[in-house]
């Protein structure tokens, strides 16, 4: 600590800067550590034996090292691999299309010379408040559009989100109108303005919203649960969700009924540690990929700053 103060003095910064620095570093450190601890618990939990976890609960250390949970997850590596592939392709495709759709819409809604923008904004926003519920949506997907067991059933429901649209709109609104007007005078069409002038300026927003869309696709299991039947089309999350929830389902049923007891014997799976291992398998790749996205944040932000 004294070192830090010393250095700060040497570069002749004000007292406030030192206070701010101490505040900033300690605040961020505390929060970061709070956020990290449970993750360590998940990691060590996934590497512990089921018995140790059931008896002692979780700790920050590995108890009675065991790879059983991972063995259960990777019992069939080809199937997991396929599920990864489905999820990755879906995430990439969904993010690209979704980003384009949302940016295009947000651009129009933020143009001040478009008199109907409030009406359209309301048209979109209204849908976040009222919904018909699951049954009519399910009927639309399965009966009207016949999307059962199709990849489109995984892609379409999340391709457009009003929430992301509004975030995007607020960013685009911050781009000076004069830039767009100037481009127009230079003879650019609306599409050219969007792609050549606006998009490069809102790279941080594209990265942020892109990340949100990607995470939504990556974490989705619900649509797969509703619409996908063939096991070969399962995305990762649903594949793993089933492993955990089937166990929960068994339990629920067993406490409610007298189903023949031999069923129970086939359910001796690691439950707690399995959940932890699944979490690692599911979130691991995206956690590892996150620094790359972060880099892109920084790039986008600097370019934006220079040009602005």
């Amino acid at each position, binding site marked *: 600590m004294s070192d830090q103060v010393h250095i700060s003095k040497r570069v002749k910064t004000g007292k406030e800067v030192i206070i701010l620095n101490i505040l900033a570093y300690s605040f961020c450190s505390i929060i970061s550590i709070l956020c990290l601890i449970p993750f360590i618990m998940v990691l060590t939990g996934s590497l512990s034996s089921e018995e140790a976890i059931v008896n002692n609960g979780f700790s920050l250390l590995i108890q009675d090292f065991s790879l059983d949970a991972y063995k259960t997850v990777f019992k069939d590596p080809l199937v997991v691999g396929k599920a990864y592939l489905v999820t990755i392709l879906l995430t990439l495709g969904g993010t690209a299309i979704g980003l384009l759709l949302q940016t295009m819409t947000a651009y129009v809604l933020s143009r001040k010379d478009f008199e109907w923008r409030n009406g359209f904004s309301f048209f979109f926003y209204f849908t976040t408040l009222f919904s018909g519920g699951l*049954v009519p949506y399910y009927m639309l997907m399965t009966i009207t559009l016949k999307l059962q067991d199709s990849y489109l059933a995984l892609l379409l429901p999340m391709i457009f989100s009003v929430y992301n649209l509004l975030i995007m709109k607020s960013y685009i609104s911050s781009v000076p109108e004069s830039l767009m007007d100037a481009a127009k005078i230079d003879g650019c069409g609306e599409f050219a303005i969007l792609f050549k002038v606006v998009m490069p300026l809102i790279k941080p927003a594209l990265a942020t919203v892109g990340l949100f869309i990607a995470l939504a696709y990556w974490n989705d299991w619900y649509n797969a649960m509703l619409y996908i039947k063939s096991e070969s089309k399962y995305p990762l999350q649903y594949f793993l969700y089933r492993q955990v929830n089937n166990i929960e*389902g068994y339990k629920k049923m067993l406490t409610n009924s007298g189903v023949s007891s031999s069923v129970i014997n086939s359910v001796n799976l690691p439950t707690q540690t399995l959940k932890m291992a699944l979490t690692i398998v599911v979130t691991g790749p995206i956690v590892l990929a996150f620094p790359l996205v972060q880099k892109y944040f920084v790039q986008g932000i600097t370019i934006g700053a220079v040009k602005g």
Partner: protein
Amino acid sequence: MKKRVLSVLLALGMTCGIVSGCGSQAKNEVSEAPADQLGESADSGEASESDEATGQVPDTSEHVDLKMYLIGDRTADFDEVYGKINEILEKKLNCSLSVDFLSWGDHDTKYSLLFSSQEDFDLIFTASSWCHYEQTAALGGFYPLSEDFIKTYAPDIWNVVPEMAWEQAKINGNIYMVPNYQNEFGQDVMTIRGDLMEKYGIEKITNWDELVEFYKACANDGFYASQGGPNYQYFQNKGYTITGGAPHGGEMILYNTQDPSDLSFTYLLDWDGFADYCKQVKELADMGAWSSDVLNSTEERQVGLLNGKTATLAWNLGSCRNYGRQAETEHPEWNVTIVDPVSSQPKKVNSYINNGVAINNNSKNKERAMMVLNEFYTNPEVYDLAMLGIEGKHWEAVGDDQYKIIDETNYGVSSNCNWGWNNMTITRTEYIENKTEVDKVYDQLDEAFNANIKPDHIYDGFNFDSTNVSTQFAAVEAAVDIYYGPLVNGLVDDVDASIAEFSAALENAGIRDIIAELESQAEAYVAEKQGN
């Protein structure tokens, strides 16, 4: 055909010793089955006599593809096994059957979506309370099975399934499922640590007081006795049982099943016994007879016993034996044994609608679907395939009524949702070479249970139909969700205050409307039965 009937009879004869009470009863009742139960059956008079129906061969000249929904997961060898079943179905009924699964985690959501989206399928697994039977029937999802329909297209099922089972399946006079037929006892027993009983100087546990004594001894020793309050043991010791179709799986309204002449219902909160129970378990909970986490614990029932945290495991006979065996091998020093804490009371056979199969109201081939079900239920070849897998690959026969496992990994015994057509007259039992202590206690208890089946109570076959009071019913369930768990596990601060709050909430929700409706339905039911 002849051969099949013969083997059914043979199997019946062999299991007769075990199920003496019910076997003879089933036979009697088939002959005197009332034909006027279903309004719809009145107009199709031609097939009303069961003997004639059996001889009549329904038209199967057109090939159809049927679809069935089961609960659970497709096991690795499932398609192979059902391929064999399909060969039989093709030959015999000129149809094929494809199966889709609703997994354990999803079926709550997807079951109702299948019906609400009017999907085209024919057969579906169902069960009272835990697998959507009452709700789906009430919303018109299932095809009502008339007596003629069953006799015409599933004559063998009609011959096997006892009258009581059909009676239980009835909702508002209509049968919506083919119930399974196996005698499971509705009363739980306890797998218990023999070493602890010895340590505390407790020789036997046969009634409530001895059970409480053991619980207290455990708590004083700093040991958890169980994974929660033993409310069922208390109710059963008092002779009470749940009323089918009443709120919270029937637990809110009880009747005295041990006394067939007692036709009254007991609303749980009007019963002094409930307050008495709550006070006793509060004392136990405060002493530490179980963890204060029980309401949030997701641990399976057997976990506590197996990992040495609790002294007992309360479950049905079969499960208690299975886990008893496991504990025996893992910890021989525990001296695990099984006790019956309600030994004075005669035993009630569980409801047959705990598993069953229904036909979708939207099905285009209801007749063929029923015929297929008939095969599953009564054709030993199909039955063995569905329950055990392929002979020689997954299991081998020991005599005519037993099996030995060869390889269970890709098609577990009785774990492929074949429970809907459980038929104890042709079910093979497992052949065990070396019996352990637990096995011996199990055999004794099993024998004792079967020798002590209680007389029928007219309400055993009664099922409450909540359609007219659905609003109150839902409101009552909401209140039960809040108050009931803490009370029966003794976790409230003040029992009397909490019961008063619970009672007020239930009154607000309209419990009296439900009781009134239930009583009038029961009265009509009794009048109809006794009128026969």
